[in-house]
C-alpha cells in the first residue's frame, strides 16, 4: 500500500479546444491507493482531465504518467485504467454477466467465468446476472458499471459523476458503499463530481477545480476550514465574506478593521497579501448572542446586528443578521434546545473564535463559486 510505484501523475497537462482552454497547465500527483476527487462546477475541465487520463482525449500539452510509465498517448484499450461512465454506458445488447465479463474476455483471461461470478457477488447483483441492463434500476445499473470496471483490476479507476443519475437517498447509500469497496480493494480511485458533499464524504484528497486550474487541493476538512480563495470558500459549503482592512500582525494574530470594529484572525489562516481583504467565517462558526451580553472573552465580537430572518430547519435554525453596514450575515445554530430562538428584529451581537475565520485577497469576486439556481440539480 505504501508502494508508490503506481502513482498517477499529471504534468503540465493542458487541453485546448480551439481558443478555449479546458484544462490549463495542470500538475498533480494522485498517490496509489488513494480516493481522489476532482471537484468543480460544470465546464471547469474536470471531465476533460479524466478523459485524458482514460485516453479518450489527447492532451494539447503535458504528460500523464502511471508510476514511471508515460501513458500520455497510449490508446485507451492499452491502458491499465478503467472508467465508470456518467450514465454508465452499459452495453444494452449484453446481459449483466456479459457486461461484467467484457474486459476480461477482450484480454483473453482464461477463468473469466469464475471471476465474473465473484464480481457480480461483490456488487450484489447475483440474481440479475442473466438480465439485460434495461431491466435493472438505476442503482443496480450503477453497480454493474462499477463491477464491469473493477473486475479488470485497473491501476486507476476513474469515476465520472458516477452517482449523478441516482436519487438522493440512493446516492448516500452508494457513497458509503463506494468508500467501503475502495478501502477494501485499495485501488486508486479518481472521482469527478460537481457535488461537494459527495466529494467530501468519499475522498481522502479533493482538488477544487475552476476554469481549467486547481484552486486548492487538500483533505476535505482542510479545504472546508481553511479555504484560500473565495471560489473554494463559496463552492464548498457557505461562507460569510466581509470586506475588511488589514491593520497589523500581533503575536501570530492578524488584526483587521471591520467597518470600525477590530477583530483578529490567526496568521496561518491569512491568505491576503494587500491592505484590503475578505474576512471569511462559516455560518455555523458564528454565535449570535443578545446585544450587550458580556460573554465574549477571547473571541471576536461584532456588535449592532439585528435579526432579519429566522428559518427553522429542524436540526438547526438559520438566521440572517443585518449588520450596521448593511450586509446580512448568515448564522447557523444547532437546535440543542438549551436556549430559546431569536425572533425577527431582535438586536444581537455576533462572536466567533479567531481560529475559525480566514482572510482572502480582496481582488477576488466575493460571489465566485456560489451556486446559481441552475447548478442546484
Amino acid at each position, binding site marked *: 500500500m505504501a508502494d508508490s510505484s503506481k502513482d498517477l501523475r499529471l504534468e503540465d497537462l493542458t487541453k485546448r479546444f480551439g481558443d478555449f482552454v479546458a484544462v490549463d497547465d495542470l500538475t498533480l500527483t494522485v498517490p496509489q491507493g488513494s480516493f481522489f476527487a476532482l471537484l468543480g462546477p460544470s465546464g471547469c475541465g474536470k471531465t476533460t482531465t479524466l478523459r485524458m487520463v482514460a485516453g*479518450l482525449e489527447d492532451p494539447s500539452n503535458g504528460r500523464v504518467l502511471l508510476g514511471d510509465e508515460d501513458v500520455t498517448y497510449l490508446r*485507451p484499450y492499452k491502458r491499465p485504467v478503467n472508467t465508470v461512465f456518467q450514465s454508465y454506458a452499459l*452495453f*444494452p*445488447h449484453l446481459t449483466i454477466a456479459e457486461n461484467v465479463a*467484457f*474486459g476480461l474476455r477482450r484480454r483473453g483471461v482464461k477463468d473469466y467465468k469464475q471471476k465474473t461470478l465473484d464480481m457480480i457477488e461483490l456488487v450484489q447483483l447475483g440474481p440479475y446476472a442473466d438480465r439485460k441492463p434495461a431491466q435493472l434500476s438505476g442503482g443496480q445499473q450503477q453497480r454493474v458499471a462499477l463491477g464491469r470496471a473493477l473486475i479488470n483490476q485497473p491501476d486507476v479507476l476513474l469515476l465520472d459523476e458516477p452517482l449523478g443519475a441516482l436519487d438522493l437517498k440512493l446516492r448516500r447509500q452508494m457513497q458509503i458503499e463506494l468508500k467501503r469497496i475502495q478501502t477494501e480493494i485499495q485501488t486508486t480511485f479518481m472521482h469527478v463530481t460537481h457535488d461537494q458533499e459527495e466529494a467530501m464524504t468519499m475522498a481522502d484528497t479533493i482538488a477544487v477545480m475552476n476554469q481549467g486550474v486547481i484552486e486548492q487541493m487538500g483533505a476535505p476538512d482542510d479545504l472546508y476550514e481553511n479555504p484560500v480563495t473565495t471560489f473554494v470558500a463559496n463552492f464548498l459549503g457557505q461562507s460569510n465574506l466581509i470586506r475588511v482592512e488589514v491593520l497589523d500582525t500581533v503575536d501570530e494574530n492578524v488584526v483587521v478593521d471591520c467597518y470600525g470594529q477590530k477583530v483578529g484572525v490567526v496568521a496561518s489562516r491569512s491568505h491576503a497579501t494587500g491592505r484590503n481583504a475578505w474576512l471569511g467565517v462559516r455560518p455555523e462558526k458564528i454565535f449570535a448572542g443578545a446585544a450587550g451580553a458580556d460573554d465574549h472573552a477571547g473571541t471576536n465580537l461584532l456588535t449592532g446586528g439585528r435579526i432579519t430572518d429566522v428559518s427553522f430547519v429542524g436540526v438547526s435554525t438559520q438566521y440572517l443578521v443585518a449588520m450596521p453596514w448593511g450586509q446580512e450575515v448568515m448564522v447557523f445554530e444547532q437546535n440543542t434546545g438549551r436556549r430559546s430562538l431569536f425572533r425577527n428584529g431582535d438586536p444581537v451581537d455576533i462572536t466567533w473564535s479567531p481560529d475559525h475565520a480566514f482572510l482572502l485577497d480582496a481582488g477576488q469576486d466575493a460571489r465566485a463559486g456560489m451556486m446559481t439556481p441552475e447548478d442546484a440539480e
Partner: protein
Amino acid sequence: MSAGLTNRPRTGAAVDGETARRRGWGWLLLVPGMLYLGIFFVFPTIQLFFTSLYDPSGSFETGYSMTWHFANYVDALTSTWNLFVRSFAYAGITTLVCLLLGYPLAYAIAFRAGRWKYFMLVLVIAPFFTSFLLRTLAWRTILSDQGPVTSFFQLIGVLPEGGRLLATPVAVIAGLIYNFMPFMTLPLYAALDKVDYRLIEAAGDLYSSPLTGFRKVTFPLSMPGVVAGTLLTFIPACGDYINAELLGTPKQYMVGNRIQSAFLTEHNYPLAASLSLILMAVVLVMVIAYVRRAGTEELV
C-alpha cells in the same frame, strides 16, 4: 394514513379505466390502415390466387374459366426456374454490395460527418427527386459502348478492346445497386445514429481495439438497421425488371421481366399470376428464415 389506504385502490381503478379507454381508441386508429391493406393488398392477392388457377387455354379475348388448374404452378416453375435463380442471385449480390458500400457511408454520416451530417443525408436521398425510370435510362448513357466508363475500363485493361458494360449482368447489377442504395443506407444510418458513442468509448476503455469494439458493440447494436436495410433492398430487387430491361438483354432478364411480359404482352394471366405468387412465397420463406436467424427481437 387511513386516507392513503382508502385512496390508493381508487386511483388504481381510475388508472385502469383510463388505459382501457385508451386501448379502445388505439384499435380505432388501426382502421384506416387495415382498410387500405384490405382493399389494395389482401383483396388483389386473393384475386391473384384465383387467377393463377384459371384454365391457361383461355385468353384475354375469350375470357378465362376457373378450372382449379394447379398445373399452372408446375408449368411456371419448369419454364422459368432459371429466371428465379438469376433473380435471387442478382438480388443477393446487390444486397451484399449495398451493405458493404452503405455501411461505411452510414457510419461516416452518423459518427464522423459533424455539421455535414444532414447535408450528406440529403445527398443520399437526392436521387429520389428524379424518377427511378429516368435515372436508370441515364445509366444506359453512362454505361454505353462509347461512354466514358466503358472507355476508361478498356483503357486500364479491365475490359478487353471492344468489350461492353451495357447489356451485361454487371450493368444490371450495377443499376440495381445504384437504385437500392438509399434503401440500405437510410435504415443503417437510423440504427447507427441511435448507437450511443459513449458505448464505443466504453468498449475501448474495456480493452477492445477499434476493430473488436466494432465487432462486439457497434455492429450488434446496428443489427436492426442491417436487417431492415437488407430486407428493403433484397425484396424489391428480387421483383425488379426495369434494370434488366433497360441495362440488360433477354439474357439478363429476371422473374419480373417474365411476369411483366406475361401480363402485358402475352396476356397469359394464369402464368403471370402463378409466377407472382411463387415469387412472393419464396421471398417470404427466405425473409422469415433470415429474420429468425438474425434474431433482432433479442435487441433492445
